[in-house]
């Protein structure tokens, strides 16, 4: 009896974490599913059950599809930059640069990721400014003045300009992850490749690339799910405008909830985001489990 009590008392150690998770993480997600079936707003606390109407409304709404498409664009560009460009940068850093300078460059590359999204976002909205921004000034300076535009103010360019800023902030972060992955490759592999007469490019494709596969998988998955959750960047720089052209699902649900006061619709959009990102995360778990079994 005493032993049983002692065993149960150990539960105290995990209790705070479990309570926090249940109340502030799990319950809200479950509540969101329920709320998406009601029509309600912040000031009429009497929700009306409408079944799947909110979902029907979302799927029939061109802005919803526009937002989803923008999320996809975000994912594609981020994949190329965060998984592709970052890996190349990391490999170059390892191949070319001596120890000290490498440390310095690594630090430098990471700095944007250490700044907050507001700092980066507001800074870039100055750079993109149509009259005084550096981007247009630079274009004029090199004779490409006809390309100058109101980057964040035009429907054709707003979301792309936000995505570009996001890459500026993110590439260094994933490059650092890849640097660590490359450093974990046993040195003998590189020696062997060198002895066999493989050049740097050949070595990259036949040693580095296969050996960092796990990290690549992880970065790919984190990047995709990040792209479907994106909110801050768009909120800070365009709030989804002009004319909803740069909405993503995250900002669209925020807009519906707190500006249109259509909470049920917003909850339905949130559920869609949840399903997409949960599926991606579950895929990650499944992959890493299989990897562990292979090993």
């Amino acid at each position, binding site marked *: 009896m005493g032993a049983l009590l002692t*065993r149960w008392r150990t*539960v*105290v*150690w*995990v209790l*705070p*974490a479990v309570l*926090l*998770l249940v109340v*502030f*993480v*799990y319950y*809200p997600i479950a*509540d*969101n599913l329920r*709320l998406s079936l009601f029509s309600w707003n912040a000031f009429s606390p009497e929700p009306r059950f409408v079944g799947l109407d909110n979902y029907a409304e979302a799927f029939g709404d061109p802005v919803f599809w526009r937002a989803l498409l923008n999320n996809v664009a975000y994912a594609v560009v981020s994949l190329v930059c965060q998984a592709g460009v970052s890996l190349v*940068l990391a490999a170059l850093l390892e*191949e*070319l*640069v001596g*120890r000290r300078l490498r440390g310095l460059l690594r*630090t*430098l*590359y990471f*700095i*944007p990721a*250490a*700044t*907050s*999204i*507001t*700092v980066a976002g*507001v*800074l870039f909205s*100055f750079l993109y400014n149509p009259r005084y921004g*550096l981007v247009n000034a630079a274009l004029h300076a090199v004779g490409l003045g006809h390309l100058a535009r109101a980057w964040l103010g035009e429907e054709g360019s707003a979301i792309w300009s936000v995505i570009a800023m996001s890459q500026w902030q993110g*590439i*260094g972060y994933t490059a650092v992850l890849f640097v*660590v*992955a490359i*450093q974990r490759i046993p*040195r003998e592999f590189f020696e062997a490749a060198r002895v066999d007469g493989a050049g740097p490019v050949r070595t990259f494709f036949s040693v580095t690339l296969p050996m960092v596969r796990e990290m690549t998988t*992880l970065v790919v998955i*984190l990047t995709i*799910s990040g792209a479907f*959750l994106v*909110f801050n960047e768009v*909120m*800070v720089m365009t709030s989804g405008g002009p004319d909803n052209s740069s909405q993503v699902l*995250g900002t669209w649900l925020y807009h519906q909830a707190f500006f249109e006061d259509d*909470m049920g619709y917003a909850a339905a959009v*949130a*559920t869609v*985001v*949840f399903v997409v*990102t*949960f599926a991606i995360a579950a895929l*990650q*778990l499944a992959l890493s489990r299989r990897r*562990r079994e292979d090993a």
Partner: protein
Amino acid sequence: MTAVKQGAPEEGALKEGALEKRRVAVPPARPPARGGAVTLRWVAARVLGWSVLAGFAVAVLYPLLWMVLSGFKDNQEIFEQPWALPGALRWENYARAWELGVVRYFTNSVIVTVASIVATTLISAWAAYGLCRLRMPFGNAVALLVLGGLLLSPTVALIPLFRLLTSIGLFDTYWALIVLYTAFRVPFTIFLIRAYMIELPREVDEAATLDGASTTQIFWRVILPMCRPILVSAALLQALFAWNEFAFALVFVSDDSMKTLPVGLMAMQSRLLTDWPVVLAGLTIAALPTILLFMAGQRQFIRGLTEGVGK
């Protein structure tokens, strides 16, 4: 950052400096062994590689440098000579930004960040201890619950959380942010600390038990001190997260005097629409703490990132 630590335990915690040491045996790239001559192609490839690295460094650094320097300019200088150095070091811009709101947002950010660091690290260390060093009923179920917490993202929970926080009276308080920053980061931090804690030899606990120490004493006097390196990493990552978090801070705090820096800066930008130098000075002040923190604790940062992100 939702990521899962799935590494095999024996790979273990990254020892200080191990990364750098393991590599000294290999000299930097030399010309191809065969022939040995420095060919034109080899030179061209290296020049290209270096230009990519240098080009990226400039692309990263220049906007930030421009931000810091423009904080010293006046409006006319920014608009007419955007590329030039400031004509004078106008520290008064920084002073004005500080007085016009940054000081308040900064204080709020410090309060929320420090509180959430303490809460997250402690609560996670307790849980990690329970999960990996004590025999606990339903241990697996708890581990699964924590793992699941990694998969759930804040954006999705905005609306129900708004309802919840309003109904329990936390809306528009520091507590709203402290509690949420802790709750959403606890899963990641537990896995981070657990990966390290699980490596500590069993004999440590057994010896302490023989000496008559209780599990509580073992935690505070033995295990926690031994986990110091990973606790530092966990605290640094939490600092970066809490200092920069935007979505919760935007939705759950509406009173301007309670806003943290990320949201406060946006409010300031719309208040001071035309006063670019002051806004840019404010941005610089806001960016400095995390950049300095990262530079000072770089090794711990990177360990936390890569341990947390799996191997």
